[in-house]
């Protein structure tokens, strides 16, 4: 059998023009498919950055919230009520809102401000410079060192700015797991300072962060919060909620889906057509093989091997090319929203398998139909 596969391999790769066309077709299709889905995955990951960075187990919010950025403030009594639910270990407020800074150069810059619970500082980031207690110092803010920090003119500990006519001082530089989606720098401060410095509506708690005593309490907490007219979801569910918003409530998901389908169709067409031509050109040879004594199933194995080899090589090249492109892009644009996930790879692999099955099907159909007698008849 190895000998047969070796022949199939040589027939395929020695036809350099067609093999190259097949590889280019599949590589290009895989590249586009993985690229599209990676960008989408990157967007979704960044859209949920605050949730993953804060790291709370349960988030309580107004049911109409769709993403972290469009929080609907809740009255303070919600927090008290939540603390009274059996199974809640602790519950703290989180402020999340936008503000405009006036930098030392006089330039104005939008920022996202996260106000952490004054007592626990739940959700505090890991500091690269400074001391977390300094967040309690007068006008203390911690800046996140990510790709957006240069928009704040690369502040250091001690850098001063203005926020709604309030003085602000950078007391620490932090790092976070994920950067935000919209290219806006992030600042951390205490909850009370945030609601004091930033104009707020009547209610001020964007979210209430809850830690359950045990995992099994989560269901009870959800139910009790729902009885109050609010929504309690786990961090994972919140990320999914945000993903679903971008997937189904914006045009992004649809566009990505279309591009992925188009990439798939392009790959299918190019490889299907080229493979069919390859089979047609060798049809008389396959007929001769049949006449010599090759069984139909042996020819099927050869063709399936050729299609599978091409598809898998194209898949590898496509994924490699995509990864390289993302790597290069991230070198230039650190905030480039793209991440290759196992789901993306799995989807692209599935599509490549479909391409291989389709290509081999049309080849096998043709080869099985050829009669050795046709070889004699010419």
């Amino acid at each position: 059998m190895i000998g047969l596969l070796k022949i199939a391999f040589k027939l395929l790769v020695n036809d350099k023009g067609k093999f190259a066309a097949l590889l280019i077709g599949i590589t290009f299709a895989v590249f586009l498919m993985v690229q599209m889905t990676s960008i989408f995955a990157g967007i979704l990951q960044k859209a949920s950055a605050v949730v993953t960075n804060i790291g709370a187990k349960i988030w309580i919010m107004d049911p109409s919230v769709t993403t972290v950025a469009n929080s609907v403030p809740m009255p303070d009594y919600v927090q008290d009520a939540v603390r009274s639910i059996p199974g809640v270990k602790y519950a703290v407020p989180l402020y999340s809102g936008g503000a405009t800074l006036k930098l030392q150069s006089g330039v104005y810059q939008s920022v996202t401000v996260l106000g952490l619970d004054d007592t626990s500082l739940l959700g505090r980031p890991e500091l690269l410079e400074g001391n977390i207690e300094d967040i309690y110092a007068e006008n203390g803010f911690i800046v996140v060192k990510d790709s957006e920090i240069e928009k704040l003119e690369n502040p250091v500990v001690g850098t001063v700015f203005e926020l709604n006519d309030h003085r602000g001082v950078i007391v620490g530089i932090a790092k976070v797991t994920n950067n935000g989606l919209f290219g806006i720098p992030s600042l951390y401060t205490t909850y009370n300072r945030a609601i004091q410095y930033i104009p707020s509506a009547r209610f001020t708690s964007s979210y209430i962060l809850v830690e359950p005593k045990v995992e099994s309490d989560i269901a009870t907490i959800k139910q009790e919060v729902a009885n109050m007219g609010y929504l309690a979801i786990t961090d994972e569910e919140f990320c999914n909620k945000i993903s679903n918003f971008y997937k189904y409530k914006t045009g992004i998901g649809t566009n990505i889906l279309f591009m992925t389908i188009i990439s798939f169709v392009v790959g299918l067409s190019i490889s299907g057509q080229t493979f069919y031509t390859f089979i047609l050109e060798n049809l008389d040879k396959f007929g001769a093989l049949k006449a010599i004594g090759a069984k139909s199933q042996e020819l099927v194995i050869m063709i399936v091997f050729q299609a599978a080899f091409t598809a898998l090589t194209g898949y590898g090249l496509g994924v490699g090319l995509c990864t390289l492109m993302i790597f290069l892009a991230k070198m230039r644009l650190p905030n480039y929203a793209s991440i290759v996930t196992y789901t993306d790879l799995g989807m692209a692999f599935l599509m490549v398998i479909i391409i291989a099955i389709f290509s081999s099907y049309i080849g096998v159909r043709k080869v099985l139909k050829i009669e050795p007698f046709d070889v004699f008849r010419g």
Partner: protein
Amino acid sequence: MANTAIIARQLVKWFGEGESRTNAVQEVSFEIRYGESFFLVGPSGSGKTTLLSMMSGILRPNSGSVLIDNTDIWSLNNDELADFRLNRIGFVFQDYHLFPRLTTVENVAIPLILKRCDWDEAIEEALKFLDIVGLKGRAFLPPVKLSGGEQQRVAIARAMVSQPDILIFDEPTASLDGDSGKKIMAFVKSDILNEKRCVLVVTHDDRIFEFADCIMKMEDGKVTAIEKGLAK
């Protein structure tokens, strides 16, 4: 007297049905013996190729039988027929049907590879047969780099490599000039044919009739004459 290699009995083959039915071969019977070069001749459309295909287990007759070593090959199923062709018959096609993307030696090794021989052993064996046909020096070239006569010899080496006892040549000189055709047939006669092997040649090239032990003439699907004991 040599043993009978092939017995064809009352072979009938038609194509199409009703008014479009064409009787390609009509009740043809004959025998071929080992050590014999048997020529099947006749004009185009006389049924030579159809008959050859039935003799070699490629085209199922409508009626009649083909006995090889007392086995009716048309009683075999498709896989058994494929094995039969692989083990007992060597084909030299009119257009050679060599794979241009394989080297000459790889082309020759194909029947052995189909017989599940180890790759290296198959190549080694194929080289021996290329040596027999005088093309060992061209073993690693692609067939397209060879002349028509050389390609014909590669096809012969491929047909011989699995040591079949029946060799079938379909219009072996059709793509060759007169001299090359004669050289090939002389080579077949002197170096390929032996007492354990018979050669069945389909041709309408009368320049090579001199290499035949027996000539069977066909016209309109019927045998019109059989001439035996011709070879010099």
